[in-house]
């Protein structure tokens, strides 16, 4: 392990630059340091104008996602030591396919809009009263959607998905996985209301199953799996509509069959 490593960091200043350029910084490599520690070191000791997002530095806030050597990574969970050998450099860029506000900070307003469209919250058809008590759920019912509920909205999957880059209106992996998370929740009754957004060319049918979202997900959510599972449920629901044109229920979409 080398004791120093060169970091090439994408810099973009909207006041003076037309496009980003790289600046190199040499940083010490400590065994326990992650890429985010190195960025903090540069900001504290070398160049205070370096701009990036971070908060919890323990892989749960989802704000420090960046491209590290071309791979979407949470910089708080990416160790310098795994790059520091044979004179390697570390190249840090803002997450791919997002507009860049400054240096390593991306504009995520579009993602927030898409997330809202997927309606990732509990929806009830009935108007239940608080006095009726809480919704009960067995461990098995929890297990059905738990994996999809681990999403921290870090948008690494958007930076991994070529469809997001080529087709900006595609709802995208995280939002679709979160919609499926609520569809598969036994307490939720909103699957039919999410159909318009999900079973749409910009929804699950936009996905070509590249599978990169699942590979880069730091929380092992498997958005690609969630999307394919919804595709199958949507087809079953569509076939059922021929058998029972009236009184369609969203049972198959909710994954409760």
């Amino acid at each position: 392990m080398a004791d120093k490593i060169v970091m090439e960091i994408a810099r973009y200043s909207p006041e003076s630059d037309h496009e980003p350029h790289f600046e190199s910084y040499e940083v010490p490599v400590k065994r326990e340091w992650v890429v985010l520690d190195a960025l903090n070191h540069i900001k504290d000791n070398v160049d205070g104008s370096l701009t990036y997002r971070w908060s919890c530095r323990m892989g749960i806030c989802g704000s420090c996602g960046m491209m590290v050597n071309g791979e979407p990574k949470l910089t708080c969970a990416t160790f310098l030591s795994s790059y520091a050998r044979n004179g390697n450099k570390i190249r840090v860029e803002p997450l791919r396919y997002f507009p860049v506000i400054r240096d390593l900070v991306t504009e995520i307003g579009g993602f927030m809009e898409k997330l809202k469209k997927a309606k990732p919250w509990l929806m009830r058809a009935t108007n239940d009263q608080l006095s009726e008590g809480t919704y009960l759920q067995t461990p098995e019912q929890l297990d059905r959607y738990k994996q999809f509920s681990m999403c921290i909205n870090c948008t690494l999957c958007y930076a991994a998905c070529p469809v997001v880059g080529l087709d900006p209106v595609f709802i995208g992996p995280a939002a679709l996985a979160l919609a499926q998370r609520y569809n598969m929740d036994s307490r939720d009754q909103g699957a039919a209301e999410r159909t318009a957004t999900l079973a749409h060319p910009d929804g699950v049918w936009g996905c070509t199953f590249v599978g990169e979202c699942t590979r880069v997900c730091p929380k092992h959510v498997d958005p690609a799996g969630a999307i394919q599972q919804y595709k199958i449920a949507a087809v079953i629901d569509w076939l059922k509509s021929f058998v029972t044109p009236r009184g369609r229920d969203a049972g198959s979409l909710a994954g409760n069959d």
Partner: protein
Amino acid sequence: MPVALQATIKPPVQYTEFHPRWYRPKVSVYWWLGERHYFKFIVRELSSVFVAIFVIETLLLINALRTGPDAYAQFLQLMQNPLVIVLNIVSLFFVVFHTITWFNLAPSATPVRMGGKRLPDAMIAGPAYLAWVAISAFICWLVLR
């Protein structure tokens, strides 16, 4: 730009004082060349063309069998053409790649739950591989016996 034209084009986003100009990266036409995983995806998608070639060959074979001995002999002659043999070897490579990649993706698309737990991925992909080997072995036996 003329002012009249400027007025008709709606800006895509509302910039504020603190976000004077976002940099919007463009996706290159060659986006799939630079990265191993993207390249593998494109090869996987393209391999379906070679699956189609095998399907067409099978349909030609069935048609030749239906038409009569002369047509069948003609079909065999076509298959012995060196160019067709090379095409078939290349196609076989892509069809095997296609099959393996899709079998490996199947577990994430079709999770099966038994006894309240999700079956491990090998239990979904495994039977598909077994069936593939068994059917291939049966066809080999049928042809070579």
